[in-house]
């Protein structure tokens, strides 16, 4: 189980590197969306490993609301960049 966790963290590093390197703002947004869903799944995974209901609830809420929030952010950024 620990090995799976480490592989998940390494997978998390790829979009972080990509978000740092790429100059286009949409590539960055893609990386952020990927990271947010990955962290939520990681929280769920760890909560199930520890058999902890509280953290699992937090993970599910973050999964739902985080995605909705990034949709909002994408709309706002689109407004900003198209006006330029």
């Amino acid at each position, binding site marked *: *189980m*620990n090995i799976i*966790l*480490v592989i998940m*963290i390494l997978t*998390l*590093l790829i*979009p*972080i590197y990509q*978000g*740092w390197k790429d*100059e286009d*703002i949409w590539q*960055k*947004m893609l*990386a*952020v969306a990927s*990271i*947010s869903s990955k*962290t939520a799944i*990681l*929280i769920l995974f*760890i*909560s199930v*490993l520890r058999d902890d209901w*509280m*953290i699992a*609830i*937090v*993970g599910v*809420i*973050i999964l739902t*609301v*985080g995605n909705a*929030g*990034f949709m*909002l*952010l994408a709309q*706002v*950024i689109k*407004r*900003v*960049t198209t*006006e*330029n």
Partner: protein
Amino acid sequence: MNNPDFSLYLITALLPLSAFLLVIQVNPFHALVIRGILGAIATLVYAILGAGDVALTEALMGTLLAITLYVIAVRSSLVMKLGVLETDFQKETQASISTEEKEKKDLFLLIISNFKKIIRKYYLRLELLSYKDINNLEKALQEKEVHGICFPINNNIKNNENLDNKNLYETIFRIERLYEIISQENSNVETNLSYVNIKQNKEEN
């Protein structure tokens, strides 16, 4: 789970890494997107360290609300408002337009695109506000509705001072920094630049 500390350390190490990435960003919008990464990782760290309430607050307030509000704030503050005349502002060209008028319009569009090019290096946006005539334009500048105004120079003045055809437009700024930025690249602006200090009502340059 024979050694649970190792993966915990690994996840916690991601937090300063993403914070460092956030600090070295130059473009404000890119920095805000990286702030999203930082928020997600901070949520993860808080959650696995057992602070579910802190993680939830970080996700909802710190990431969602703060980033959205900051995007709106950055968008409305990083802007250069330039007042122009209504006749210049109209984009569509009529069929019965004289060649002189057309040249003037082309020059205006060139000036505007040059301004955009220069201030893009400073991550500013250009916003054009149109006014009816030159009196309204100057009034807007006096009342600090705009940061600068751009208008065509009168014909008789042009004849008196014998200006060449290039400098048909006059641009006045009331912000000293904007004037500095634009005048640094004076060669490709193709307009007369000047800076006016509104408070003392004294024109410089």
